[in-house]
């Protein structure tokens, strides 16, 4: 297993913030909001988190994998097909689209 990239599987993320709080370098930024979902037969609407933004700052990331270990929904995973080399520091801050697992799009 190569530790060369951490990918986000967006569908599995519940915006629980565990990865953000456990990251030793504080390199993950996450923003979300809640919506009410009314299910048939339910007595009251259910609150559901919706992920707005998810960013990993690869200029800080230590590739320690704590976020992957701590995620209860396996929304983060090692992606061994990519290594990040950039000519611009701003390009090291990756959002949801850039963090998708390789081979997905």
């Amino acid at each position, binding site marked *: 297993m*190569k*530790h*060369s990239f951490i990918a986000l599987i967006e569908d599995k993320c519940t915006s629980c913030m565990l990865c953000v709080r456990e990251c*030793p*370098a*504080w390199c993950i930024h996450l923003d979300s909001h809640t919506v009410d979902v009314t299910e048939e037969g339910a007595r009251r609407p259910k609150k559901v988190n919706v992920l707005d933004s998810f960013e990993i*700052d*690869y*200029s*800080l*990331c*230590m*590739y*320690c994998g704590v976020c992957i270990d701590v995620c209860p929904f396996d929304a983060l995973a090692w992606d061994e097909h990519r*290594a*990040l*080399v*950039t*000519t*611009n*520091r701003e390009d*090291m801050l990756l959002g949801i689209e850039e963090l998708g697992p390789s081979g997905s799009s």
Partner: protein
Amino acid sequence: MTRYALTSDPSVSVEVVSASLACCTLELQAALNSGALIQVSEGGTGPSVIVIAGTVTDALVPSVLELIDSYPGTKVMSFGACATSGGPYWDSPPVSKGIDQFVEVAAYVAGCPPRPDAFIQAIQELSLNRAS
């Protein structure tokens, strides 16, 4: 200053100067000796690269800049999280938050430490962009 060429494509070669500051130095040595690069004799047209590997403290900044100035025309590679942004020490007062505050950086290599293949990829990209 040592010239290295890619084992897979010996026409791609770079001259590497290592600014050894902290633990990334060992990782840089591992990358240089991983088998993907071969040491070649003088000559070749590839660019010269000075690799800043490790934590740059504020006290070390003048020495690092002096080293960079002593190799005019050399591209600067920021190797690892510390050289790029301070890395895990970003909230430590005596650690500089990235060498790009002081010099222009041609390539950033992510990782703490970066994998050898990330270094090889950076070398390839710097060689391809040698005209610019």
